[in-house]
């Protein structure tokens, strides 16, 4: 596969058309949003081949898309988006990933960043976050639930945390979570004992890898109206949480890939065994979708409890109430999920199951699924950078509905493998280097930090350039990290 297989239909859109496919296996077009540099890199690391593989799946509607933070995954590429008819289509665990509802939550405050510098609060915040929030692989969550309590979390998601466990949030917060932090789940019998066991002890934990907590300063506003609607003010602190469904979601994905494999063994010789799928209407398809919803609810509950702990830490350090600090949830957004949505495809309004793997929803102004307060400006789209670079808040657009199934990028996207990142940093003190840029990093894992060094990620500014240039989301604000806690 090479660049000549694609037609550049606009400065940031590259399409491989179905009718140019010599293998005659594409069922729809494959489309990548990116600069020439991005698409060349994605061709080289085989990610574009994965976008092509998805285009060959049965029943796919619209295009097989990849967002500008595309990189090699398994099954779908990271950044992959694809939709299938809700009634006759298929569902793929490989189109969601193992960390179901991995996502990002952003909190705004009215604390000026200068307060942090003035009182040397940065160290205090970092130490407290690292010591009070469970991080890493084997650490357990803030609360240990019995099975009955845990099932209620799976059924009710973030709402259960608000009702039973949170000290600092109210039902009003739920409106600022995608899908209100709760998807339909009423089949606890399909969840394995092993998944239950892993999940019961992990609510309120960060995990490891690329998951993080970040205290940031809002250093640039690009859209005053949208920033005001989102409660973002230049110079103030914001807080970002990036984590997912932890061992519970990983176990759900593992369990159901196994179930779907067994039931569909004849399909294993498809282009990639990680693209194993089930019909949505089949028992295994229905069960996977239920389990997916349970894991999504778990992830929203997890991020909600983490937010509660963070607010508690800030109250103690600043000796102010959360209200006095103006702490509020801006938005919580999934970037590994499959959900039923309505889209205008081929001139018809269709109910489809949209898979987003390393991609975010980016709904436009006026959409009924975004909070009323944001309906004039569009849905917040949260785009975290790497730990030494900026993160962005963007807003969803009507054009995204027309050209990307209402989807946008989810972050910087890796460009270096872990081995290459370790080689690059063999003589580097990552913490010290970032400290010189006024960014304090807290982590128990030195190796993990080196693997996540900023150079391992694509330039976030290039990703933002593409999302704006292609029209799939527009810049609202930029945040710079001050304190980073890595799992």
């Amino acid at each position, binding site marked *: 596969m090479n660049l000549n297989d694609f037609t550049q239909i606009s400065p940031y859109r590259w399409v491989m058309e179905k009718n140019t496919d010599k293998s005659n296996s594409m069922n729809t077009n494959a489309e990548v949003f990116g600069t020439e540099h991005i698409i060349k890199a994605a061709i080289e*690391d085989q*990610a574009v081949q994965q976008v092509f593989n998805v285009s060959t799946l049965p029943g796919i509607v619209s295009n097989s898309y990849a967002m500008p933070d595309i*990189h*090699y*995954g*398994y*099954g779908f590429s*990271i950044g992959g988006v694809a939709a299938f008819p809700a009634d006759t289509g298929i569902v793929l665990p490989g189109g969601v*990933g*193992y*960390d179901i509802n991995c996502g990002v939550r952003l909190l705004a405050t009215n604390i000026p960043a200068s307060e942090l510098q003035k009182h040397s609060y940065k160290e205090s915040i970092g130490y407290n976050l690292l010591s009070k929030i469970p991080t*890493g*692989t*084997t650490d357990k969550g803030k609360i240990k639930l019995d099975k009955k309590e845990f099932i209620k979390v799976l059924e009710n998601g973030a709402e259960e945390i608000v009702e039973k466990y949170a000290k600092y949030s109210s039902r009003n917060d739920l409106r600022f979570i995608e899908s209100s932090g709760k998807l339909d789940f009423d089949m606890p019998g399909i969840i394995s004992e*092993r998944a239950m*066991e*892993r999940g019961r002890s992990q609510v309120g934990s960060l*995990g*490891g*890898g690329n998951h993080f907590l970040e205290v940031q300063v809002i250093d640039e506003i690009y859209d005053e109206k949208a920033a005001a609607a989102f409660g973002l003010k230049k110079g103030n602190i914001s807080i970002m949480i990036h984590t997912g469904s932890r*061992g519970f979601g*990983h176990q759900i*994905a*593992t369990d159901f*890939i*196994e179930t779907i*494999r*067994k039931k569909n*063994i004849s399909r294993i010789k498809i282009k*990639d*065994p*990680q693209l*194993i799928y089930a019909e949505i209407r089949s028992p295994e398809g229905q069960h996977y979708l239920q389990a997916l919803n349970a894991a999504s609810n778990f992830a929203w509950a997890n991020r909600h409890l983490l937010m509660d702990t963070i607010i508690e830490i800030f109250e103690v350090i600043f000796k102010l109430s959360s209200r006095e600090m103006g702490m509020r949830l801006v938005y919580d957004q999934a970037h590994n999920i499959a959900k039923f949505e309505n889209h205008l495809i081929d001139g018809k309004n269709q109910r489809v199951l949209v898979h987003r793997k390393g991609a975010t929803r980016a709904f436009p102004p006026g959409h009924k699924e975004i909070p009323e307060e944001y309906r004039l400006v569009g849905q917040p789209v949260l785009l975290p950078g790497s730990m030494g670079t900026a993160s962005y808040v963007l807003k969803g657009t009507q054009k995204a509905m027309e050209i990307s199934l209402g989807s946008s990028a989810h972050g910087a996207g*890796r*460009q*270096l*493998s*872990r*081995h*290459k990142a370790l080689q690059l940093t063999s003589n580097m003190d990552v913490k010290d280097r970032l400290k010189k840029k006024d960014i304090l990093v807290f982590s*128990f*894992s030195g*190796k*993990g930090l080196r*693997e996540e060094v900023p150079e391992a990620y694509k330039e976030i500014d290039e990703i933002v350039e593409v999302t704006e240039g292609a029209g799939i989301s527009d810049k609202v604000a930029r945040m710079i990290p001050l304190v980073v806690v890595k*799992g």
Partner: protein
Amino acid sequence: MEFFETFSTTADVGIRIRGKGYDGLFHSALKGLNLLLFDCRFDRVSPLIASFPQTPYPFEFHGDSPENLLVNFLSEILFLIQQENLITTGLSIHHIDDTHIKADLLCIPLFELQNLQPELEIKSVTYHNLEVKDHEGIKSAEIIFDI
């Protein structure tokens, strides 16, 4: 004959393993996974392993292919580490063929080994490009892990 090494793709990591028959392949898989999880720190604590009793943890799986066995075998070892805080330091295989493995995973609590902790969080074992190959009785495979 046994061989194992780690490698990485852009986003994920993997192990490349080889061994005589399935027995050798699965022993290499265990060693490769421990290398991936604990890096050189495993070598530092390995002299301690003999000082502690290894508790056998029975593992049996009937699958549909060697790849299916390998994924489930490695998933079990990960579960023991992540959920039970047990590191599998040895393996006693009672039976193994294309579709069936019966073995004891020999485990030690992580806290006994200077509270050894994994260097990275592996979410799952994938089937991505996974194929167990055979060349004159030497089995080999590459396994990608989602991290």
